């Protein structure tokens, strides 16, 4: 009986087709003379047939799933993730561009102001002319408005003096 334990293992391996030819021969030699093991072998063989018939049904079912794309769901999520990233980077790009544009326009404004003031100093002589309308077209006319008024008064005052008290 102790010996039979070893053959039980061989019976399992025989069913699973894992026995070497020597083990196979050894087992069958034992089966011929041991009724207990022979019965065991038959019962396990029957079970094996039952299992095989059940699983062959499943195998057929499984065939229809062999073409499943395992990345279908993953890639759909990656798609939205990448779209979101793309969108995020676009927003970042837009922000950067608009910040750059803002800085650039502030610089331009400062530059224009500087040029305007500088040229205004150069043209100071012409300011005393009555044709002062063009000065109001300056983008920064509101800064120099007070100054203009002062100039204007000065101009009329000069005229007043020149005309001996008559305008």
């Amino acid at each position, binding site marked *: 009986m102790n010996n039979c334990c070893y053959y*039980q*293992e061989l019976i*399992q*391996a025989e069913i*699973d087709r*894992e026995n070497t030819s020597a083990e196979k021969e050894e087992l069958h030699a034992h089966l011929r003379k041991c009724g207990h093991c022979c019965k065991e072998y038959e*019962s*396990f063989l029957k*079970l*094996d047939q*039952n*299992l*095989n018939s*059940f*699983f062959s049904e*499943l*195998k057929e*079912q*499984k065939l229809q*799933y*062999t073409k*499943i794309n*395992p*990345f*279908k*769901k*993953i890639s759909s*999520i*990656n798609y939205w993730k990448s779209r979101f990233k793309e969108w995020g980077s676009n927003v970042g790009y837009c922000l950067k561009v608009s910040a750059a544009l803002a800085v650039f326009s502030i610089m331009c404004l400062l530059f224009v102001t500087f040029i305007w003031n500088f040229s205004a100093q150069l043209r100071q002589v012409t300011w005393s002319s009555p044709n002062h309308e063009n000065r109001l077209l300056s983008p920064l006319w509101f800064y120099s408005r007070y100054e203009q008024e002062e100039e204007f008064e000065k101009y009329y005052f000069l005229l007043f003096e020149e005309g001996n008290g008559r305008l």
Partner: protein
Amino acid sequence: MYYRTMSLQQLYQLLLEHPQKGFQIVVERYQKPLLSYITYKSFFAGNVEDVFQETMYRAYKNISSLKNPERMYAWLCGIALNVIREYGRRHHLHLPLREELLETSRPPEVTSDIATKISLLPEMYQQVVVLKYLDGYSYKEISDLLRIHISTVRSRLFEARKILRNTMEGEQ
């Protein structure tokens, strides 16, 4: 070629560094047995494709929760099992999982079904049985996949068969 032969530790490292690339190898390695496992587990529900996609998605998303790369296949099976249970609850399907069957006494025509008998086996026996019969894997291949010794594979199969045979003989 290197990717096919890399160890589980190397694969795990790749997964952490390049998840997409690593996951492709995981799929290449485990798609076939995992699909079999899900086909078998969804035998009563029949929503294999949904379960498979969801399992793959969750595995990809939660790859960092895999602590022991040696148990990669078992981990994937665990995710699949959770997904199947959730689907069962959501769609009010009765999935004769082991715990449920042990709790309730099913009518005899159901228990006489071989699928139900297999689902009554402990989970570790079921895995081996499915790999053996549905995928036709050898002892060596099963031992590689489950990271257990060949003698353990053999003894689990033997135990599973003994239980199945005894329940069948008990009915007759």
